């Protein structure tokens, strides 16, 4: 059996096309958000996004060329490396907008928390695959993976980056639900979680508390977090059925939308492309997620299933929370829209994941020896 090489014959082209399509629309959208109506210079963010995709594309080819099982033998190593990077960030990280998330290496800025998402998925997949015989799992068995999550969770929360920490936690919960837990244990966990909520509330920073409170009443703080939600809904709603047209979204072009190239990127899209455009994009995302689930289902082994499922949940929750936030049904937490929001590290890491998924999909016919 070959261990290297690109199994080109079995590339899942549909999947790749879906990814590229969504990404391309994303780039176009970023161009729009950076476009200068008053005749000034258009922001070059979209160029940077294309560059990230090119790098990501190369990374994807790289991860695709390795058997995913081989990658997973190093899962824990990768995990520890990621945690180490997170520690480095907390010590030497570059701070902007009040949060310390980046390391700068040779002129490139890199966000370890994004890498952590990938590492955690691999690590969890590895763990649940190794401990398969003891299924459904008792609370005792859940503790190690819980620890696997807890460490990066708190490190990232400290940055402070509530959004990414939350996503890690949710991915973990999804994984646990998927692999099966005893009902009683699930209940205990849920109760424990509810008890932890007030404690967690205590740990939240003020502005994060503000965001939760404002979620329930945006008018409470019309110039702070309430402002974002209100502006976002105005932008989305004013798109109407057909949208205002490319480069013609007034909220976007006049910069009324804050963070419009990152967290609120979907608002900009919805304003310019309207209901039809938004539903179209939503369908694309749905297809993408279902396609990843299909890869999970058809995987030749449990490990592949777990990895693919982990990715599916990562993307699913990313889409749900980000778009939910933009539409005002989820509190504002900084979670980017996968393949769509501007962000170099996120793009590269996602593309690496795509490479792994392609590999899983390509190897589905190969029976284990």
């Amino acid at each position, binding site marked *: 059996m070959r261990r290297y090489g690109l199994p080109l014959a079995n590339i899942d082209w549909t999947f790749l096309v879906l990814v590229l399509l969504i990404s391309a629309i994303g780039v176009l959208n970023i161009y729009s958000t950076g476009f200068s109506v008053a005749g000034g210079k258009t922001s070059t963010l979209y160029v940077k996004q294309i560059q990230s995709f090119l790098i990501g594309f190369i990374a994807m080819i790289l991860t695709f060329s390795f058997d995913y099982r081989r990658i997973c033998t190093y899962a824990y190593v990768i995990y520890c490396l990621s945690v180490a990077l997170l520690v480095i960030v907390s010590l030497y990280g570059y701070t902007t907008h009040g949060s310390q998330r980046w390391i700068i290496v040779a002129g490139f800025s890199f966000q370890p928390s994004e890498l952590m998402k990938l590492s955690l998925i691999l690590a969890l997949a590895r763990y649940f695959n190794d401990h398969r015989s003891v299924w459904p799992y008792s609370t005792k068995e859940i503790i190690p993976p819980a620890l696997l999550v807890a460490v990066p969770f708190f490190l990232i929360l400290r940055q402070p980056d509530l959004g990414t920490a939350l996503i890690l936690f949710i991915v973990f919960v999804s994984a646990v639900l998927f692999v099966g837990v005893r009902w009683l244990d699930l209940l205990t966990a849920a109760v424990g979680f509810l008890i932890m909520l007030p404690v967690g509330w205590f740990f939240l920073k003020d502005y994060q508390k503000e965001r939760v409170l404002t979620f329930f009443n945006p008018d409470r703080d019309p110039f702070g977090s309430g402002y974002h939600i209100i502006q976002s809904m105005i932008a989305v709603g*004013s798109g109407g059925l057909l949208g205002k047209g490319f480069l013609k979204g007034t909220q976007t072009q*006049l910069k009324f939308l804050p963070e419009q190239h990152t967290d609120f990127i979907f608002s900009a899209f919805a304003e310019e492309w309207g209901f039809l455009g938004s539903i179209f994009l939503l369908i694309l995302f749905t297809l993408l997620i279902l396609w990843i689930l299909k890869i999970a289902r058809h995987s030749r082994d449990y490990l592949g299933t777990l990895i693919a499922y982990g990715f599916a949940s990562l993307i699913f929750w990313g889409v749900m929370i980000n778009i939910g936030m933009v539409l005002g*049904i989820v509190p504002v937490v900084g979670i980017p829209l996968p393949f769509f929001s501007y962000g170099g590290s996120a793009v590269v890491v996602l593309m690496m994941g795509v490479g792994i998924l392609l590999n899983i999909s390509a190897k589905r016919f190969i029976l284990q020896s």
Partner: protein
Amino acid sequence: MMGLINGNEGTELRVRFRYLLVAVLVAMTVLGVRLWYLQIIKGEEFRERSESNSLRFRKLRAFRGLIMDARRQVLADNHPAFDLVYVPNRVVDIRKVVDKLEELYEKRGLKIDRDLLPSGKTRPFIPVCIERNIGPEKIAVVEAHALDLPGFVVEVNPVRRYVEGEVMAHLIGYTGEISQEELAQEDMEDFTAGDTVGKAGIEKYLDGYIGGRTGIEQVEVNVVGRVVKSLGRIDPVAGHNVQLTIRADLQKTAWDALGGRAGAVVAMDPRDGSILAMVSSPSFDPNMFNKGISRNDWKNLSRNPLCPLENRAVSGLYPPGSTYKVVVAAAALGEGIIDGETRFFCNGSLTLGDHSYRCWQRHGHGWCRLHRAVVESCDVFFYNLGKLLDVDRLAWYAKQFGLGSTTGIDLPREKPGLIPTKAWKQARLKQNWRMGDSIPVSIGQGYNLVTPLQLAVAYSALANGGVVWRPRIIDRIESLEGKVIKTFPPEKRGVLPLDASQLGLIRRALWGVVNESGGTGRAASKPDGEVAGKTGTSQVVSMPRDGVRVKTLARREDHALFVCFAPYRAPEITVAVIVEHGGHGGSAAAPVAKKVIDAFMGDKKVAREASRER
């Protein structure tokens, strides 16, 4: 199920995947439904909101017309100023909005005057002016932190500039934001809150002409309020320019001559009633109002016991003192009670009943005719006239001089003063007129009250042969291009009821006051004998008398008055001066008038020589 290992697990997992499929579809449908709600159901409403986010109406302030003096020297013009304006998206408390701004200011050591903030809540999309006339440091802060201060805009607006400041303050007046009461008035429909209107002086009197018309523009703005596109515009119309009769050089001379003492100076051209200078002291800097005046400053001005905001020239009421003697003389001559030869004896006092009225000259003047009585200002002579004159007849003559009623000058808030009559005393004090009341009236004390402007008008009538003019400050109104819109020609108000010889008698006496030995007005004399006039010393009453309060402060010195005209043969200028608590008219007020006349005459000489050289 392809690719999975154990049959059992396979089924379990297959079921799970089915659940997952359903879960994903349900979740996406929820998003889809929410999108439907926002974009289709509420789409119209949000579209409107997005437009009002970004579209707004902007007032374009008009340039106020220039105010110029008689020689077209600019007294009031406009210069561009930066205003900090806030346009809210919704209803908020203005004070809260300013908190962030204050924080940013403080980092640079700048302050915001919370006193000047409009109070209450904003209304959506109605701009609120936060600070007027801000300097470059504040502009820098606002522009640099534009994203932290959504809704704040720096606008350029014209702001008034008063070149001469306090010297012309009462005449020119000042401008300010229109008040609630003013808005409620009848003909104010074109005005809205935030408009600038004249509040005092010419600015107020001619606001309709000078103010121009505000323009309006619909613009599209981005989140920091920067104008991105103009969608339509009605240009503002600049106000008309005004040319006054005032001469800035004489005004300055009069101001300097008064030297910061409380009082007033009015210089008038007796040939047509044009006011050449009008000074009131103490004064204030009208430029203070350009930014919107702070509560503190306003308090200091309005509660200052010296009343710097009042134009003493038209609203200051004083007993005329001995300057009134010309009126009494005119009345006595007119009624035929005396003539130029009639003599009265002054031994220093006059006794009436059990009361003795003193002359200022204790030893008395001896036998006096009218001429000497005026020159040396003998009180007893005039007490005698007072005894012989009916007070109502005297009042009639006073009214012919223009006293006791407004002169009709084109300035707001003129006061008519008071000339007592029997009827007045009956109505006001519920008492009959007594002879003892006529005595002080005859020397200009008692119930008499006049303004410095009235004195100037009265003496101008004496100077020009008997014509009482309406005093005028405004010469003409012009459009920007110089086309004359309106003129204000001189207006005759009346004629003195005296014949030429009677007039001449008085005039010669006035000449004597300044130029003859014993005259009380020697301080104003010039070597060529051009000046004629009358001194006056107005008693300051320290206690209210008979319920009539005379406007004074409880200090000892009397007010000093002096009214004069020059050149004697063909007068071209009348000057009335009052120096509050200045003491004697001759010593305190006359020198002030002399300086003004010197400047006037000197300037004429220069002009004559210049034209001769050509």
